[in-house]
């Protein structure tokens, strides 16, 4: 069913409530709908048309159209169609009915809209602060255009602490994170524990929210942003930069040369390889199987080396630009890569056999962190988590981008819906990645790496792009704008959705299963720890307090001048 058919279907039901329809291509459908009917329409799309919820995005469009805009994005994976339901909200009192009670997956998306844009989401089941720091004043919304990117609120209160909910009767609270030996991301779970059983939790995250979106739409240029996007994540940086440039290219209808597409595909798969190798190692480590952890890291290392040879970096490749890529691969490197892949495939087979034959890992992870297919749909879970529950989605196949349309690969699914299923999926996906990279190397033709873009990009266009990150679909949204930069850029990493599923996965299982369950979704690395300084002469140890650390950081960071924005090529 293509975009036109879907449009007919929806307007047959909500004819007078669909104000405008845009069909920029066969895979995109933008419907401007009546905000009053948003709940009915979303419910129809989600429940009856069985679309997958992607994300909700808010934007301050007041300087241009005089409205706030809210986008509820849905994906029809089987049709390769992305649907965006756009609500135009009045500038003076932006208000929209919540859909989180119908679609639990929209919980964070809507709370983020409330935090960042001050759009009132009425009837939200849990309208608690999500993104903004604890001390941030009420009523100040960073993504509104009338707030400067470098504004420091005077009434910021660093001492204010977060008001946690009361735990249920009979439960003790066990804090989990932000600094934790096995959770490799600064997020805080407040686990409600009854004896050894986890009965629920409250989540507080977004502790390293860096204001990347605001920064990009305020001071950076189109081609600076890919470098920033790469730094969104320590593992899947290339995914974010590809997703961003693809969103811009989609908005501006820029065609990318084939060799550039192959280079993107190659490096995306490279990233998946090292991410999955790392994850399997960490999962084994969490399960106490440290031999495999060491082996996985040993096997992974040549992948990092060859990445460095191709791009100059083990990570953070600096690959993408709007309209192409910056690096090429030489024939010599091609051969070297083939050799690395051949060795990797063999060694990975050994590891996979060790994992599958040794029942320890299987027993440790079976029936742990269960997320059924229905649960995945409800919470919008993605990637290996969904595929392990038999949900057959993969952006590379469903919404082909870069060179994936020309390549042959299988989407790995499993039926157990637990952490074991995620282990199986990821282990097998490594082989698919190796095969994909070999196909890329075979099919690559010589040619240009970059489209010549000789005029300014059109203004006010919407661009959506999804890229299959190692953890699932990474979704980027761009509205092109003036001054060689987008008006709005929204990143939705797969962990954004998957993390929302964690409380459901860990409920009613033991505390000991918490780490591997959380590890099962492969949350991103962003590990910080306290700093301890030892004076060698006196031998005394001293722990730095938060205030001291902040003061030290602020000293070195004094004049934050970000004035250079490169022009588009």
């Amino acid at each position, binding site marked *: 069913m293509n975009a036109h058919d879907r449009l007919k279907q929806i307007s047959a039901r909500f004819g007078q409530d669909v104000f405008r329809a845009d069909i920029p291509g066969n895979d995109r459908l933008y419907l401007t709908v009546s905000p009053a009917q948003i709940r009915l329409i979303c419910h129809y799309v989600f429940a009856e048309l069985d679309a997958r919820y992607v994300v909700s995005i808010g934007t301050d469009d007041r300087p241009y159209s005089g409205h706030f805009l809210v986008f509820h994005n849905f994906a029809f994976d089987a049709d390769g169609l992305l649907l965006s339901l756009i609500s135009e909200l009045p500038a003076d009192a932006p208000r929209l009915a919540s859909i989180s009670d119908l679609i*639990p997956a929209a*919980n964070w998306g809507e709370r983020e809209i409330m935090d960042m844009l001050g759009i009132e989401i009425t009837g939200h*089941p849990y309208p608690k602060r999500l993104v903004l720091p604890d001390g941030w004043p009420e009523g100040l919304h960073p993504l509104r255009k009338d707030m400067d990117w470098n504004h420091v609120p005077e009434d910021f209160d660093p001492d204010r602490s977060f008001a*946690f*909910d009361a735990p249920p009767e009979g439960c*003790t609270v066990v804090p989990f994170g932000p600094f*934790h030996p096995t959770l490799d991301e600064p997020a805080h779970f407040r686990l409600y524990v009854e*004896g050894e059983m986890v009965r629920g*939790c409250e989540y507080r995250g977004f502790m390293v929210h860096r204001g990347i979106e605001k920064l990009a739409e305020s001071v950076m240029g189109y081609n600076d942003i890919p470098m920033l996007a790469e730094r969104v994540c320590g593992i899947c940086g290339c995914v974010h930069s590809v997703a961003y440039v693809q969103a811009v290219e989609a908005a501006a209808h820029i065609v990318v040369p084939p060799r550039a597409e192959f280079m993107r595909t190659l490096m995306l798969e490279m990233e998946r390889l090292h991410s999955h190798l790392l994850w399997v190692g960490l999962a084994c480590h969490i399960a106490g199987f440290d031999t495999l952890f060491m082996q996985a890291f040993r096997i992974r290392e040549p992948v990092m080396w060859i990445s460095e040879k191709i791009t100059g970096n083990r990570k953070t490749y600096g690959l993408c630009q709007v309209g192409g890529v910056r690096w090429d691969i030489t024939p010599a490197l091609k051969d070297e890569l083939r050799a690395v892949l051949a060795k990797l495939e063999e060694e990975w087979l050994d590891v996979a056999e060790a994992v599958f034959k040794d029942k320890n890992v299987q027993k440790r992870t079976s029936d742990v962190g269960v997320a059924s297919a229905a649960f995945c749909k409800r919470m919008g879970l993605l990637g290996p988590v969904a595929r392990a529950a038999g949900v057959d989605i993969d952006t590379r196949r469903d919404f082909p981008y870069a060179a994936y349309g020309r390549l042959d690969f299988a989407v790995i699914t499993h039926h157990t819906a637990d952490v074991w299923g995620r282990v199986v999926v990821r282990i097998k996906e490594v082989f698919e990645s190796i095969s994909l990279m070999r196909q890329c190397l075979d099919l690559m033709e010589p040619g240009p790496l970059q489209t010549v873009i000789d005029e300014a990009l059109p203004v006010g266009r919407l661009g959506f792009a999804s890229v299959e990150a190692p953890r699932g679909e990474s979704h980027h949204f761009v509205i092109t704008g003036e001054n060689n930069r987008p008006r709005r850029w929204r990143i939705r990493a797969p962990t954004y959705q998957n993390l929302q599923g964690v409380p459901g996965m860990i409920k009613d299982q033991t505390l000991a299963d918490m780490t591997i369950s959380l590890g099962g979704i492969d949350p991103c690395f962003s590990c910080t720890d306290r700093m301890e300084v030892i004076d060698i002469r006196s031998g005394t140890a001293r722990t730095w307090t938060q205030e001291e650390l902040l003061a030290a950081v602020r000293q070195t960071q004094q004049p934050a001048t970000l004035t250079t924005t490169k022009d588009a090529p």
Partner: protein
Amino acid sequence: MHLPAETFVVWAILVALAGAVLCALTAKFRQLSNILALASVAFAALFVLLASGMVFVSGPAVAPHTVFSPGGDWPDLRFHIDGLAALFLGLVVFITLAASVFSCGYMAQPSEYGLLRYTPNLLLFFAGMLGLLATTDLFFYFFFFWQLMTLPSYQLIRYEHRIAAYRHAANKYLLMMQLAVVAIMLGSALLAAPHPSLAYDLDAMTYSLPELLVSAPARATLAFSLVLLGFGIKMGLWPFGQIWLPDAHPAAPSPISALLSGVMLKTGVYGVLRLFLCFAPPGIGFPVAAWGACIMVCGLLTLTTGTLQALQQDQSKRLLAFSSIGQIGYIALGLGAAMVLSDVAPALALCALLGALLHVIHHALFKSLLFLNAGSILTATGSQDMNKLGGLFALMPITGICALIASLAIAGVPLFNGFTSKWLLYTATLLAGRAAWFLPLCGAIALMVSVFTLALFIKYFGTLYLSRRSAWVDACAQNGKRMEGNYWLLTPQIALAALCVFLGLFPWVGITLLARALATSPNGIVGALGQMLTYHPEFLPLQGWGMGLNNGTAHWLPILLGVILAALFFLGLLLSRLGGASARTDAPWLCGYAQETEQNRYNARQFYSDIKRALAWLGGAPAATAAAASDRHPLHHHNRQENLRTRKEALYAMTAAHDAAPETVQTARNPTRATP
């Protein structure tokens, strides 16, 4: 003038009764009444200890002493103090003395409950126990003394009678005790001797027993079953103990709990000893081994169920009550083992009997200490809910050290007295495989269950004293003020704790005392084993200052181990000093973000949840209402008016909570919970 020992016991009882009258008259003056009760107990204790000492030194009287003879066919009241009776009497007066000293501090607070129902009842209860242990009668006077023990203790259990749960507990106790006395009297009637005025006298019945065993073995079996049932209910054997004991102990004021668990249960043990080990002379065809096996199995079931059920408890005194059931099981196990082995392996039988008797003494010491300890906490915090309490060690360190000693002792940790008696029990059972194959099995099970005892007291001591200070305790402490009890509360605890350590370090003291008690008890198996000691003194499991079987299979030298451990401790300390090791005290690491709250405390409810889940079928799950109902903030504890006001406020809060319930549910909803 040479007075028999029995006369002193009569005087002790009379002193106690007179004291009861005095206390009743002075009940309005709380502290006076308390001191009078203490003086009466001390005075009576003097007589009893004199009597016990006389028996130990010069042996028991040849025949029972007639205290009172009404003439005609009416039975005579006769007392007979042999070594065993002297031992138990000594134990009763010692623990009662400790409890009365504690009472002077515990009951001194003005309260809505007057002392008229406390001090007189305490003394009557005391007199009843003395009489019960001294009398040789098993029918009329037994009934009299039994009720003299039961009815006052019933009053004491329902002392705080405004709490419905306590009334129910007391009623249950009363009912079970009446059942027990009926069973014992029926058994006694079946065993009656053909002697008009001494039909139910134990001495007289002993002489008619051989004939009864031959002429009507079924009747004898029924009689002994009934007696075992009765005393089993009293001492809290499975399944009867679980019915009354865990409710009654927490309900009573703490010194009374200490008496109930420390000595009153032991009257049941004493009954079993009298009827099964001191009654039938050896060689008359009394099936000792069969009854022994029966008592052993009862003991094994009791110690397993009691201890495992105790793991489920969150109320301090209820936990201790279940643990009492468990420890009584050990005693029963030892008695049974002694009976099984008495013919085939007398040395091991002696070992088992000594173990059981020593455990009677030791349990009386550490369990009454624990109950007094829980009482101290109750005084300081007004709660026995272990979920609410925590971090008491810093606020009441002496009480905490006493609790630690008692916990280590009851868990059977070496160098403390509990280890000594358990060591004897395990040695006797584990080495007796050649004599009876099931003994090592029972011993092994008992040994494994004692691991749970340790777990239990890790929970007890850990949650009450060591965990983070709870909000409830903080409120009680009023800015970290010490909450240590006064000298009335502390003295008995320190004395009991010191004895626990002393008897643990010098086990020969207890064993020598017991050997003397056996040697001065002429009747039955106990008598036979006592006799044996005179011919084979090497059978006594003593080695120097330690213990050991003289065939060389088992040794226990506490002083040696103590010296080694102390040396190692100081060596470690020295090394740490030399190396300049530093220690740092810090708040718990809550992963760097959340503030510490009351909810972060790991409270008693969270302990051993998997064991509790697996053993839920055993029953004994906590009845939270009983103790929660009694929880009062100590600051609100003073007068009745205040109490009424807080109760009213609680009532209003309760109804208000009902009105607001839907809203609270909604706000408490977990944001990221998956299911809508």
